[in-house]
């Protein structure tokens, strides 16, 4: 098991009233598993992702990642965890506007001090080819289309070979072609042993081999493991 949460709860205050963004969520996923989390906006998907990647501290419950209790880690250890083992692809446009495609993929990880910059650069070039971004290597994000930007963000998430990739709505606002490129890549990485957890409204993400969870009002429910499209 790569990730396990037990009775995870996070409460926020909104307009003077408390509400559970994530409510008593018990969840687990295996190494190499691809999990798709669907649910309406504001149901707590992003908060759940923030919790499991150590960005937000839960009010109660436990998170165990790769045998390590995330809830017991110091902020610095959580930072190191994100730099080395968990990659988080943020919702929307998450590229650094002042850096080229290649720099966007490499620089943040070089800054984290965890990975070797030379290895990172060669891996980055591999990913650039994989995502068909060769001609855009030295372009800035403002010159890229939405699909290209998303591909760069995904390449950046995989460049340092993490154990798990958490992607918050990676295919939103994308055309069919780009959605396919991204989902194909996720599935390929999943088959190579990476754990992929994505949140989406896009039902095309529910592909064979994917485990489907639904989140509503902070609670998470296992829906099914998709064996084939027909079955889904």
């Amino acid at each position, binding site marked *: 098991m790569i990730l396990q949460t037990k009775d995870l709860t996070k409460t926020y205050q909104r307009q003077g009233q408390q509400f559970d963004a994530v409510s008593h969520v018990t969840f687990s996923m295996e190494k190499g598993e691809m999990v798709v989390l669907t649910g309406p906006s504001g149901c707590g998907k992003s908060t759940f992702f923030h919790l499991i990647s150590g960005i937000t501290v839960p009010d109660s419950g436990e998170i165990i990642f790769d045998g390590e209790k995330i809830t017991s880690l110091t902020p610095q250890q959580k*930072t190191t965890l994100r*730099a080395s083992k968990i990659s988080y692809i*943020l919702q929307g446009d998450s590229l650094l506007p002042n850096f080229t495609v290649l*720099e966007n993929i490499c620089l*943040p990880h070089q*800054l984290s001090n965890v990975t070797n*910059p030379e290895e990172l650069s060669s891996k980055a070039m591999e990913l650039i080819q994989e995502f068909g971004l060769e001609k855009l290597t030295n372009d*800035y994000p403002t010159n890229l289309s939405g699909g290209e930007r998303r591909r760069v963000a995904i390449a950046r998430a995989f460049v340092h070979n993490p154990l798990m990739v958490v992607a918050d709505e990676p295919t939103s606002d994308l055309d069919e072609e780009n959605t396919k490129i991204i989902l194909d890549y996720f599935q390929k990485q999943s088959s190579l042993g990476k754990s992929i957890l994505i949140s989406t409204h896009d039902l095309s993400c529910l592909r064979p081999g994917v485990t489907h969870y639904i989140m509503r009002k902070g609670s998470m429910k296992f829906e099914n493991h998709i064996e084939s499209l027909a079955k889904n």
Partner: protein
Amino acid sequence: MKSTSSIVCRMATKNLQRRPVRTLCMMFFVFMLSTSLFCSSVLVDSMQGTLQKTTDRLGADIIVVPEEYEREMADSLFLGELCSFTFDREWVDVVSNLDGIQECTTQMYMASLAADCCSAATQMIIFDPETDFIVTPWLEQDGLALPQKGELYIGALINPPEPDSIKFFGENYHIIGQLERTNTSYDTCVFMTVETAQEIMDSEGWAAAFGEPTSAAADLVSSMMIRVEDGADAKAIAREINYSIEGAPISAYTTNGIFSGVISSVESMTGYSSVLMVLMLVLVITALLSVFTITINERTSEFGVLASLGVSSPKLAGIVLTEGTIIGFLGGFFGICISVVALILFSTPIQVKLSIPQLNTEISYLLVLSAKCIFLSVAVSLLSSLYSTWKVSRTKLDGLIKGEEL
């Protein structure tokens, strides 16, 4: 493997390069601060330095000059303006016998003319080698012999048309040496003994210029320089001299007293400069603080992205601090460069307008001042970025990711 600090530096540099207008505006504020500090320091220090050097070089505690000529004397000593007042030597004996006086010497001042008869309008200082404690030690220090009749020494800034002679009132006089630069008005003077002065005064050119021949040079004195005994109060002795010679056409002044006008100008200039610097500091810090705060808020999600990728809060803060350092350094550096160029190009009008005899252009002084200016520029820029740095480092990561206002 590249070090983290070089990557932080590269990220900061890229951020600045990609926002050229913002960067240039911020650098401009620091530039203004650096320029103000550099220029005002050079001007004030030059005035103070010249005053200090002049009083040190003078080595006298009291100066006796013809009544109401103290201003001319001060301007001559400080600014190198030409003067040629005299009083009768008989007063020298009266004053020198008073109590509390350790030694005294006399000088006479003559001025050549800016006409064909003379190489240039130059201040001539006639000193008495037997009693002199101002020019003679200087010559001894440089290993130079006393000038004989028809000989003279020229100051460091005098450029005679011929290397070994200079013309005064139609006659050529032998230059036996050029004195080392002192950065005082003495650099534009020529020095001679009374024999040479007499030769000049006896020349046809002198008579043509001033009409009737003047009385013997040995009988005339322009100033009397007095050193008081150790522990004696120069002010009290100057007062005593004035009391003793009441009604005489001369007055005694302490060195500080004769330079009181200059000292008060220096003090005013220092005061204005300090006020200007404080205002500039407040203005620049406020402006930089505002720009940093506004742009940091615009960049919240950028920091959120970096945080989500495992960049620690100290490193995020490091990026902002590095940007502040680069802005401070470059703004300060360009400020110094432009100030140096401006001071070189406009040195003459600045000197004339502000009555500063010499601008201090010693390399060591300028280097130390440059280092101070760059240090202040970087410190101000860093100080202005500290608030943003603090905000970035203490904001919760999910707040950064959501792009919340810092």
